[in-house]
């Protein structure tokens, strides 16, 4: 055999092998790393300074990731609209991971669409998934009541009138937990503080939110927070009435920089990036995920200029206790505002206690009624 032929064959074989070795994994890489299309659907505008903005901030974090394409739709109603928006993202944008973010999107809409698209993952923000539901759907939620408890501590130090106010959408368990936590936080500072609550009846109803805020200010409340979809109106109105404000859902400090004490925020950026990374890595997301401050599901807005040193110290100390785990904001001895015993001395409900999810009372010190 001649050196040249050996050399040539060897060369060809060698290059083929190298080319093959180089291409095959590359094909594999390309196949498994075609951009993952992720869809986000919001019930309101994504710049609402509230619920939807918090999710949109999460989407923005996902957008910044490698190998991901994000599609978004805002103002999608909890009707057949959302079913078709999800399917439109699947059909036209090849979405394989969907975040329909509004509470009312889950039942019946996600439950109806998920079985039709077994190769698509549906991640819904609320703790609604239970065994027996489609396994390609999942729930995630955060213990944001703890954030309202910390808001309450900041509010307890800031109030002069010992009256704080809460503008609430509907008397449902999540909202009641926030109201109760806000007052109980404040009562850690001064047990004489009361919290007046006004329900607007709707998740997003700017006029009533403004009226409620003014009514609270008229009644002498000097620190106000809220649980509505978009806290913008409450924050601006309250600050205009010279009240301090505590935020909710997202960071509203730009709306009232001097009056903003702190705020209970969702940290969806961290949660969503984590979930998307799991999918990119070929892993699977648990169907039921929850977390609090310690897990990075929620966070607090930076303390504002009006927060005193004493307030800051107690705020940070309590925050550290919550981060350590097992902290109970709702603990005995505790009565509701109709005089019924909620928890005996020594009894308490930690943030992950399932009993909190069917809360139907306002604790002693909250002025208002659930019906």
């Amino acid at each position, binding site marked *: 055999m001649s050196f040249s032929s050996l050399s040539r064959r060897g060369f060809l074989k060698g290059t083929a092998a190298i080319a093959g070795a180089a291409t095959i994994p590359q094909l594999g890489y390309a196949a498994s790393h075609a951009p993952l299309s992720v869809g986000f659907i919001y019930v309101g505008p994504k710049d609402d300074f509230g619920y939807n903005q918090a999710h949109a901030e999460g989407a923005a974090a996902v957008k910044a990731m490698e190998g991901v394409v994000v599609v978004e739709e805002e103002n*999608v*109603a909890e009707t057949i*609209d959302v079913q*078709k928006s999800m399917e439109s*993202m699947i059909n*036209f944008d090849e979405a394989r991971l969907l975040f329909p973010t509004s509470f*009312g999107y889950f039942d*019946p809409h996600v439950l109806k669409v998920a079985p039709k698209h077994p190769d698509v993952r549906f991640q819904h923000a609320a703790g609604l998934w239970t065994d027996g539901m489609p396994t390609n759907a999942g729930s995630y939620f955060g213990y944001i009541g703890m954030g309202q408890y910390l808001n309450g501590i900041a509010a307890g130090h800031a109030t002069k009138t010992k009256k704080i106010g809460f503008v609430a959408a509907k008397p449902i*368990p999540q909202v009641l937990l926030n109201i109760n936590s806000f007052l109980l936080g404040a009562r850690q500072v001064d047990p004489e503080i009361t919290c007046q609550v006004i329900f607007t009846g709707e998740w997003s109803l700017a006029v009533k939110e403004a009226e409620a805020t003014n009514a609270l200010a008229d009644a002498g409340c000097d620190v106000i927070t809220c649980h509505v979809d978009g806290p913008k109106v409450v924050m601006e109105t309250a600050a205009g009435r010279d009240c301090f404000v505590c935020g909710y859902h997202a960071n509203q400090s730009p709306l009232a920089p001097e009056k903003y004490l702190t705020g209970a925020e969702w940290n969806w950026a961290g949660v969503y990036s984590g979930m998307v990374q799991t999918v990119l890595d070929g892993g699977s997301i648990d169907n039921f995920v929850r977390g609090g401050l310690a897990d990075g599901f929620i966070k607090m807005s930076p303390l504002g200029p009006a927060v005193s040193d004493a307030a800051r110290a107690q705020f940070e100390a309590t925050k550290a206790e919550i981060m350590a785990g097992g902290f109970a904001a709702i603990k005995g001895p505790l009565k509701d505002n109709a005089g019924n015993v909620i928890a005996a001395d020594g009894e308490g409900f930690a943030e992950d206690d399932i009993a909190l999810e069917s809360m139907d009372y306002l604790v002693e010190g909250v002025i208002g009624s659930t019906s």
Partner: protein
Amino acid sequence: MSLSFTSESTASAGPSFGLAGLARRAEAVVLPLGALMAGFAVFSLFLLLQGNSPTDFFALVYRAGFGTAFSWENTLSRAAPLLLAALCVALPARLGLVVIGGEGAIVLGGVAAGFAGAMLFGTPAIIALPVMLLCAMLAGGLWIGAVGALRHYRGVNETIASLLMAYIAIALMNHLVEGPLRDPASLNKPSTAPLEDALRVGNIPGWDVHWGLAFGIIACVLAWVLIDKTTWGFAARIAGGNVRAAQVQGLPVGRLILGFTALGGAFGGMAGFFEVTAVHGSANASLAGGYGYTGILIAFLARHNPLAIVPVAILLAGFEASSGLVQRRMDLPDATVLVLQGFVFMAILMSETLYGRFKVFAPERWRST
């Protein structure tokens, strides 16, 4: 004062044949289509001013609304409640009444259907569903019928009354689903008790579109027969054209007002029935989806002709079906499609002044040059 939005058919005397007849009928098609095109043209200018391409926009609307099998299912699913909501406007309109509160009939119809369904737990669907439908239509019919009664007996403006009553209906629905009719298990989204599976209305076989579409189309055809082929419809059109003349002729204007408003409301209630049985599975705040308001636009675009409602509702449903893709691809706000609807609505209203002005549509004037 009676606002008249009746179509040309009132004026067309007897059957018309040949070219002359065609010309007369063409006016009712050419003018709305022309207005639609004018609306599109103004909207295109608006897009250009915003630095967006109208071609891209309409291509996306076509693709997402009508371009694929999924697009059609999307469009037709959205059209189902719109057909019925439009009838709630179109029927009273033939009497010259501008009823814009169909939303109230829809939400109360939905609540009635949801409540009846919860009460009829365990009853065979063949009995339960018709009863639920009846309850829904009764609720809607009574609600809009009350608007008609206020108009007839007390002279209350039906436009304002129906709009305000829609707000009352929504408040009433919220009260009922959060209070007396609430399923205690519906913690964070107050609703009536979920319907059992047997009472859920499914899809038209082979399509991902629920039966509401078929019922909506049938309702439109029936309404057309009522208006164009019966003496009641004829009487209603006379009353819509000139109330005094109708009264002088001894037509029962009062009963016509009550009947047509109640029937319109009943169709609205039917839309609520399908929202609950085919979409939501229970009655809750999501029932106030705004279909009643889109129905106003559709009825006016269709010039209150029930048959024309079908294509117009499908067209507008197609716009709404495309709203998402337009938002995602062109980064335009979701209100873009509403702006388009607004331009089209303005164009259609302005085109109302053009009827009878073009000689080409009036054969009797062809020779009089």
